[in-house]
């Protein structure tokens, strides 16, 4: 196999951009020219960045391959600069046993594009009643446990599930939602939902569970991760708990940083997502936390759906945004272009930070490290459409729009996995 030489790019090394050539030799990174022939990539104007890690991907398989399959999701991932994704267990059937964890790991590896790190459920069938086989799932390769999409409402069961998960050293993630409060809501409760006559999801559907989780985590002294925090109030509660020494972490999604409930005014179901898009004051507060380096990670909550499902009326269409293809570009446009936060300040939130949270090896651009990186051109403009989105789910609010910043190449273990 030939070596690869990437020249004329700026390379993110140790948190700073350096203009240097990067080489791949034997699947590893080196900065000095290796022996033998090299294929040359001229990356003038582009950036070489550590490959991305998504802590929150809905695989849809097994069971809902019409929405997404392992071929399409791994294509979408590497197209977006991701070489690692964590799968949520709300598949059909739910990933609540070691056989399904095995299936996801083995089948996902077939395409040799990116690694899949599965989450298992906390409870059997995510029903919030009996504990799942968390120990055996961990042995099979599960990196964490969550009943994502559902939220265990029974406090006793939540406490037991956490204690049992902690017994096996599993990372615990919670989707904070009081389903009795969110009820039949379909977008943020506020002026917009009142105007549209659609049932709203109040902020407290999220914050009331965050408060509970903080108390459980404090009482049991077990770390907990709250995923896709969407409200200012929710983030404030977590930050205050951290100050008190409670081991609680959280992530936010690209879409909650980029969009607000006002985007739903056109009844476009591509903006229908759970937790819902909130107010601009929530959005700007979360962006500000990124500036202050107070957020633990960014996860996509990639949730692909079939066209016909998103063509239902707003109140009947499923929740979710297909995100992997565009997440990095959307973050770049929102955080760096719009809010002037340098890329090197936030890229860790989708590369090293989630790996660290899950206790996995970091992926940095260092001499001798595995060559897991991607090349991004910040000035290239591309059109988001059905052909340029590799996920089967075309349900992104960016559909039909032009976006500045393009992933040119993605390397996984030294192998070029994008373009295909």
């Amino acid at each position, binding site marked *: 196999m030939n070596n690869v030489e990437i020249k004329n790019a700026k390379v993110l090394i140790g948190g700073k951009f350096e203009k240097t050539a990067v080489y791949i030799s034997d699947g590893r990174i080196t900065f000095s020219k290796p022996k033998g022939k090299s294929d040359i990539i001229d990356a003038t104007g582009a950036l070489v960045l550590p490959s991305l890690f998504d802590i929150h991907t809905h695989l849809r398989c097994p069971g809902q391959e019409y929405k997404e399959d392992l071929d399409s999701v791994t294509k979408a991932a590497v197209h977006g600069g991701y070489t690692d994704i964590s799968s949520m267990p709300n598949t059909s059937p739910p990933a609540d046993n070691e056989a399904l964890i095995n299936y996801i790991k083995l089948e996902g590896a077939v395409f040799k594009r990116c690694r899949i790190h599965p989450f298992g459920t906390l409870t059997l069938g995510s029903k919030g009643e009996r504990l799942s086989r968390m120990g055996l799932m961990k042995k099979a390769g599960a990196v964490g446990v969550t009943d994502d999409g559902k939220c265990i409402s029974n406090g006793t069961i939540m406490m037991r599930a956490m204690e049992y998960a902690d017994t096996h050293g599993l990372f615990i993630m919670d989707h904070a939602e009081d389903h009795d409060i969110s009820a039949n809501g379909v977008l943020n409760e506020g002026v917009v939902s009142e105007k549209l006559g659609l049932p709203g999801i109040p902020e407290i559907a999220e914050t009331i569970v965050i408060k509970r989780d903080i108390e459980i985590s404090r009482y049991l002294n077990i770390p907990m991760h709250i995923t896709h925090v969407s409200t200012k109030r929710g983030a404030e509660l977590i930050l205050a708990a951290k100050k008190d020494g409670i081991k609680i972490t959280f992530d936010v999604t690209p879409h909650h940083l980029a969009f607000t409930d006002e985007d739903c005014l056109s009844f476009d179901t591509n903006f229908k997502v759970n937790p819902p898009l909130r107010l601009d004051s929530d959005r700007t507060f979360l962006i500000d936390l990124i500036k202050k380096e107070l957020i633990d990670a960014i996860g996509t909550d990639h949730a692909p759906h079939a066209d016909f499902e998103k063509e239902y009326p707003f*109140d009947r269409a499923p929740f979710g945004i297909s995100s992997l293809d565009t997440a990095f570009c959307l973050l770049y446009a929102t955080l760096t272009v719009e809010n002037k936060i340098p890329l090197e300040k936030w890229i860790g939130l989708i590369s090293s930070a989630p790996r660290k949270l899950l206790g996995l090896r970091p992926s940095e651009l260092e001499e001798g490290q595995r060559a897991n990186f991607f090349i991004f051109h910040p000035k290239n403009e591309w059109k988001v459409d059905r052909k340029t989105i590799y996920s089967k789910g075309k349900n992104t609010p960016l559909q039909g729009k032009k976006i500045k910043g393009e992933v040119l190449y993605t390397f996984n273990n030294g192998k070029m996995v994008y373009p295909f």
Partner: protein
Amino acid sequence: MGGMDCRENKEMRKHLITLDDLSKEQIISILEQGKAFKEILSRPIKKIPTLRGKTIGLLFFEPSTRTKLSFELAAKRMSADIVNFSASTSSLKKNESIKDTVMTLDAMKIDIYVVRHPSPGVPYIIADHIKGSVINAGDGAHSHPTQAILDLYTMWERFGSIKGLNVTIVGDVKYSRVVRSDISGLLKMGANITLCTPKTLLPRYVIDARVRHTFDMKKAVKDADVIMGLRMQKERQDSGIIPDEVEYNHFFGLKSHLLEHASKDVMIMHPGPINRGIEIDGEVADSKYSVINEQVTNGLATRMSIFYHFVEN
């Protein structure tokens, strides 16, 4: 009928989905034209040829008696051909999507679609896939613009102008498409609005800061020129939003003794169908102040006017 050429002067949007689609001037034009049509409805021969050769599709995805009848009769009075499509008899039961259904209908060259659907926003989906005009006949709790137009007409006909009128709306505001559209239209025309309803039936977020609200019926009806009652749906009680009908009637029912606090020629309105003894007492509904039946006639006249304004040449 001199008003008929207003179409040449004022450009109308192609669809009527919410009252935001209409300017104040366009609303006045519809009201004025409605008056001409109302006169026609009082003639021995009530049919005019205005829409001859035009096809109107009535797409009702949820049950409706009054609104559907009103649209159907308005179309017939204007000599349009009518096709009916209702969810219970349609292929929607076979899981056909709205888009596919509507594209099939569009292939049949329908000029105006009158749409009612339980989900907010469906008229927009339909408008995206057809060549004709969409008139919203009610989409969930979102919008019911033709009801608002007929309500505005009823006030305008009586008082000559809507500006400065004190309009009190009593009842289920939160789940009502009628209220959303009425508020939008009344604000546009310069009325003062007061809502009276328990907190559980009031939106948690105020739609417009100009709208006031009170929980006290006496205060609510004080100096009111118009009091509008709204139907109390049985399911609000079942889902624990109000205790029961007896308690609701006690605090929020429209009773005759309240009328003495209102303006002396107060007008009682209700979009129908009414629940006697719940949101409105029978003697109020039947009193000289009540225009509930007049509203039905006005609905017919204004829907004719709306067809007239929205049909393409």
